[in-house]
């Protein structure tokens, strides 16, 4: 039997090499790419996440709070909270400055909620991309 081991991914580099870009990418959308000298990509990511987040706020989107209950409620509210918080400093500033709107019925508010969640989810993609660049798995 061959003792050759085939790995799908190269081994994870030391945490010190990628933790700073990943944390910066979370806190400041696009910031991880700027830190890694990927300026125009960082600018596109930053602008996309910021505009989507501001549109969500302008439509009075609801910011999720973790809530327990039945499985679906827990999934939706906890997942929504994590997605909202993934927008980094935009989320914290909106919360601190009192822009968190109440959860009321209406299609515009519903679009706004989706825009806020979408901004956070897009930033998760940016964080993963920053991690892959910092760890040398991608250029």
């Amino acid at each position, binding site marked *: 039997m061959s003792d050759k081991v085939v790995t799908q991914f190269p081994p994870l580099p030391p945490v010190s090499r990628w933790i700073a870009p990943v944390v910066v990418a979370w806190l400041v959308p696009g910031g991880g790419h700027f830190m890694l000298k990927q300026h125009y*990509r960082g600018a*596109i*990511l930053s602008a*996309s*996440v910021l*505009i*989507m987040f501001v*549109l969500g706020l*302008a*439509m*009075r989107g609801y910011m999720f709070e973790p809530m327990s209950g039945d499985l679906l409620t827990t999934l939706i509210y906890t997942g929504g909270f994590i997605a909202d918080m993934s927008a980094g400093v935009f989320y914290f500033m909106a919360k601190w400055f009192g822009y968190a709107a109440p959860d009321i019925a209406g*299609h*515009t508010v519903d*679009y706004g909620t*989706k*825009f806020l969640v*979408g901004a956070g989810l*897009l930033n998760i*993609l*940016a964080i*993963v*991309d920053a991690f892959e660049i910092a760890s040398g798995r*991608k*250029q």
Partner: protein
Amino acid sequence: MHMNLNHFEATVLFALFASAVLGVVSKSTDKERLRYGLRSFGYFAATVFGLGWLMYLGHR
């Protein structure tokens, strides 16, 4: 500030920014990123039109 967008405007804006991010994070060259972003936007738009017509015809 309060903004009211109709469904079409909201979906087009969502598709635009989602496609931009998908293009930036997915491929390895700028040309491939641009093509992927445009293709992604096209898929979003086609899905919106397709589902829109499906709902319209389904409610007739």
